[in-house]
């Protein structure tokens, strides 16, 4: 039965990731006093893109054609190893810990970068160069966040972390944990191109980072790339709510499908809270100038560093 729950977990990520993005886009329009697109618009976009044929440059190599599948597979792998709907490790959870998950996410980003450079389109190159620069800044901060996680659970396994926080809820307000959570949230915004870094979904070439890399894609390849990036946002937000902020409401046994199914609406509710914060940030801040991004990531690094420093309290 855990195998079925394992499949369910990955399905939840694949199926609900567009809904999460659509709901956030809708909420942002509503805050701006607009009606906005339906929350199901991302599904319609995907259906449209999947029906269409793809135009591929005759200069493109197999890297360009293969990258969308590698990317999608990477995000599917991560969906199997982190706690999304269960708080007990599923059969595939042995594959990697948080650090390993971060490696797989970076592998996906690496594939997108290669694909962006493959056709020698200037936009792809520009996006690749920018994304790599930001990625090199994000990496050390992310590793420090994992250290703050390790402070509480003496492990970098997301399941153990979830248990540690549930076992003593006051651990949530320990400085190390709070600062680590804040830094992780800032890194989610950076990694997924949300507002202080990039206007989500906008393909304004002057500012584009994530969009620049996939500029040359069309049709079903583009659908896979978009879907993958939504899954990444969904996955990172799930890790944020399930491991850092609200570790309750997960299926504790993984013995039957019912528990897993009950955990799904709970997860969506928790993601709604996280999405609300993203909406508030998206609508109340302006995009940073490109070289100010280093300061934003530097602030996340500093917060995570403070989290590690203040971790002495764990012995209380």
């Amino acid at each position, binding site marked *: 039965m855990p195998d079925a729950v394992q499949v369910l977990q990955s399905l939840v990520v694949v199926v609900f990731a567009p809904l999460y993005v659509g709901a956030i886009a809708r909420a942002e329009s509503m805050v701006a006093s607009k009606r906005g697109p339906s929350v199901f618009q991302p599904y319609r976009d995907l259906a449209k893109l999947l029906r269409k044929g793809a135009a591929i440059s005759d200069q493109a190599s197999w890297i360009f054609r293969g990258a969308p599948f590698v990317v999608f597979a990477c995000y599917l792998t991560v969906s199997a190893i982190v706690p999304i709907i269960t708080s007990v490790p599923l059969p595939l959870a042995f594959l990697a810990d948080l650090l390993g998950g971060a490696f797989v996410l970076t592998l996906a980003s690496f594939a997108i970068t290669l694909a962006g450079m493959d056709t020698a389109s200037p936009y792809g190159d520009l996006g690749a160069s920018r994304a790599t620069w930001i990625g090199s800044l994000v990496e050390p901060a992310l590793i420090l966040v994992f250290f703050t996680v390790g402070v509480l659970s003496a492990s970098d396994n997301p399941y153990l972390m979830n248990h540690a926080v549930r076992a*003593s809820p*006051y651990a949530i*307000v*320990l*400085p190390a944990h*709070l*600062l680590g959570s*804040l830094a992780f949230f800032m890194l989610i915004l950076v990694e997924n191109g949300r507002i202080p870094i990039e206007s989500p979904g906008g393909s304004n070439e002057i500012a584009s980072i994530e969009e620049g890399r996939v500029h040359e894609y069309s049709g079903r390849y583009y659908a896979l790339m978009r879907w993958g990036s939504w899954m990444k946002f969904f996955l990172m937000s799930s890790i944020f709510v399930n491991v850092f902020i609200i570790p309750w409401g997960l299926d504790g046994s993984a013995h039957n499908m019912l528990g897993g199914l009950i955990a799904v609406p709970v997860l969506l509710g928790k993601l709604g809270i996280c999405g609300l914060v993203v909406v508030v940030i998206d609508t109340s801040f302006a995009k940073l100038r490109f070289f100010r991004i280093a*300061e934003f990531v*530097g*602030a996340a690094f*500093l*917060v995570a*560093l*403070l989290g590690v*420093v*203040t971790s*002495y*309290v764990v*012995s*209380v």
Partner: protein
Amino acid sequence: MESLSTSSVSGTLVTLSAVLMLLAAFACLGSKLFNRYVAYYGFQSVVLSFAAAVIAEHYGSGELWALAALTLLIKGIGIPLSTRHLLLQRLDLRRDVAVSTGLSTSLIIGALLTAFAFLVIGPQDLPAGAVASSAVPLSTALVLLGGLAMVVRRHTVAQLIGWLITENGVFLGAITLAATFPFIVEAGIFLDLVAAVLMMVAYVSGITRSLAEATASELRELRG
């Protein structure tokens, strides 16, 4: 009387406030615009008054309630508004250009100072369960960060705010460690502080009539 341990609700709230105050101090250190600099200080003081209220509620101490209210009124609202008025309206200063190191350098030094505070006052050395133990090194870190702001900033009003951050740290440490501290001592410190701020503001606004910018390096030239 129940002690203010880390795992009690009050202790948790105090720790939370201390973390927010530390973040506000870092925000102060990293902000170039005067109005933000002052606003972050105001936010820090509001959080401090909240912590004081939590401790007052915990010990049922009317004196601490009075101090919390005074903190909110004077340090949370009064001082930020008056310094903001002074800097933005009367002196027409928006950006603090008189900074002796880069902002990122000062943030890194600030992180090192925080680490130093935790090294010196390891919360694990404090009696377990007696105090909200992580608030103590955090308050020490605030004292050091306020000192750092005074060293890094050259504008007199900015230095004054640095000094007030230090004062917030001292106050946080005092109410965490010895909440039953005689009221008269704390109130005396408080009145001293208010008098000092009033004098400083009057002095700075007087002196800036003749000097365009009241930076400490220029004030030093006034020596006989």
